[in-house]
């Protein structure tokens, strides 16, 4: 038995530093996150800079974009740009709250059911299936109507509480396949407990998958919130991008040629969800060493 003498350079970089290094060099990730960050900052800082209430009626209705009204005005003279930045803010809020809650519950249920298996899995799976077959929108309608939800945060909360089942099922399936891999056995033989194995062995293997779950839940929350807004069960104070689209539709903006009313909110929803998808492809390359272009 011979050992080939070969001098390999030692790279002392830690896992986190290395991930950051590849993240910063990844064009898709940077582009995706860049777009989301710009829109997020616009939603965060815009309302402070623009001033004025978003639904305030103005003296000049139906004017196209100009220096005075960047995105033009609505049939009622409302400034579309003011509505847009406020709408971005509540859309991000609903997406983050709804998507975040759903992702946390989905991961918790999915990981535990998938890793523990057996009777724990049977029970959690039954719960998941029960919630999965409940018609979400109808339940949200009833909850909204009875409890009179009028704030973005509570809307996001209820969307999150009803949206997690499919995420739980997807994560459970992935966990099922990963837990039979031998590196999980090896971690157990290194004295690691259940929580540690899930967090340090299984989750890192599906980090881009988990992130995509969050993106889909984020996008789903935004769309469900728009649907609720559409039926008139959205937040009564303020605006959201969905509400803007709904108003534009209701007042025949398309037929009247008021494109500046519905294009910005539609484009923003598309851009947020689309950019997150692009970022996710990039993240896959960062997290999976086999996909790195080195």
């Amino acid at each position, binding site marked *: *038995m011979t*050992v*080939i*003498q*070969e*001098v*390999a350079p*030692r*790279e*002392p970089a830690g*896992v986190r530093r290395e991930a950051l290094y590849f993240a910063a060099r990844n064009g898709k990730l940077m582009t995706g996150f860049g777009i989301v960050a710009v829109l997020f900052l616009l939603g965060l800082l815009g309302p402070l800079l623009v001033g004025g209430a978003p639904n305030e009626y103005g003296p000049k209705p139906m004017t196209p974009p100009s220096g005075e009204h960047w995105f033009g005005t609505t049939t009622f003279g409302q400034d579309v740009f003011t509505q847009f930045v406020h709408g971005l803010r509540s859309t991000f809020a609903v997406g983050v709250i709804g998507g975040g809650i759903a992702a946390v519950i989905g991961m918790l249920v999915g990981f535990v059911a998938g890793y523990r298996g*057996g*009777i724990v899995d*049977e029970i959690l799976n039954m719960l998941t299936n029960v919630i999965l077959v409940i018609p979400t929108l109808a339940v949200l309608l009833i909850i909204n109507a009875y409890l009179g939800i009028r704030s973005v945060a509570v809307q996001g909360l209820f969307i999150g509480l009803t949206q997690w089942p499919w995420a739980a099922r997807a994560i459970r399936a992935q966990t099922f396949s990963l837990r039979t*891999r*031998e*590196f999980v*056995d*090896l*971690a*157990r*033989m*290194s*004295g*690691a407990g259940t929580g540690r194995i899930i967090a340090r*062995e299984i989750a*890192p*293997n599906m*980090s881009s998958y988990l992130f995509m779950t969050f993106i889909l839940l984020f996008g789903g929350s935004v769309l469900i919130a728009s649907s609720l807004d559409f039926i008139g069960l959205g937040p009564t104070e303020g605006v959201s991008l969905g509400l803007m689209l709904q108003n534009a539709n209701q007042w025949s903006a398309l037929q009247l040629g008021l494109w500046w009313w519905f294009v910005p909110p539609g484009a923003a929803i598309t851009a947020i969800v689309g950019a997150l998808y692009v970022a996710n492809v990039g993240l896959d390359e960062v*997290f*999976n*060493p*086999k996909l790195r272009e080195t």
Partner: protein
Amino acid sequence: MLRLHDVTKEFRVGAFGGKSVAAVKGVSFEVVPGEVVSLIGESGSGKSTIGRMILGLNPVTSGSITFDGLPVRAGKEYYRRVQGIFQDPFSSFNPVFKADRVFSMIKEAYYPSVPEAEWRERIATSLRDVRLNPDQVLGKYPHQLSGGQLQRLLIARALLLDIKLLVADEITSMLDASTRIDVLNLLAELKARGLSVLYITHDLSLGNYLAERTLVLRRGSVVEMGLTERVFGDPLHPYTRELLSAVPRLHTAWDDAAPVETCVYHDRGGSDGLVEAEPGHFVACARLATCS
């Protein structure tokens, strides 16, 4: 040292675990210090299940497994003495982390107080023990290393603990012929240093190469157990003979296995169905249809 007493494993299958399948039926044996025992059987004979139960990865349904009186459930203390290596080296490493992470996991769990410099020295020593060049394997991802290097990394990992028993479950099945013999020789060296090895395989010649004692498993029970040269030289159980006749030989055309003879031990079975045919050589009743 390692003692299995009447170990049984049943897997629950079907919806809500309505049915059960017996994978291991009443297996008892012992491994003494510095001994290599090979566990031979075909697919589904329960050999890997026995290995996994010894490693505490599957719980036993009934019976007991102890190591120097320490039960498998003792967890960390048990794993300090008993470690295992599996068939597929590529699946034994988490693909998103560097391969040497298996060492840091050992450090975190067992030697948190050892200073970093000394730990690096220990890793280097144990890598040299398995004939690996530390510069070549440290800081690499699993997919950048070969199967033989990965299996040796795992042996090096086990050596960092003061293990007494290594459960080697088909560790050479995915290696090419020359690497395979390297790894086997490495096991022989470890044995010379007083380590016991439970070598699980379906390959008779590999089992033969190392082991002092051989256990032949069939459908979850031990059918023959004894010194390797006795089991291979004078197989008593019809199933063992059938297995041996199935080994391909050079310049000999394969013909169908010889018909299984009637079992002569069926009326003499001990409590676990094993009869001591000669000192240290046990054989089970064939329990064949023709035998009853």
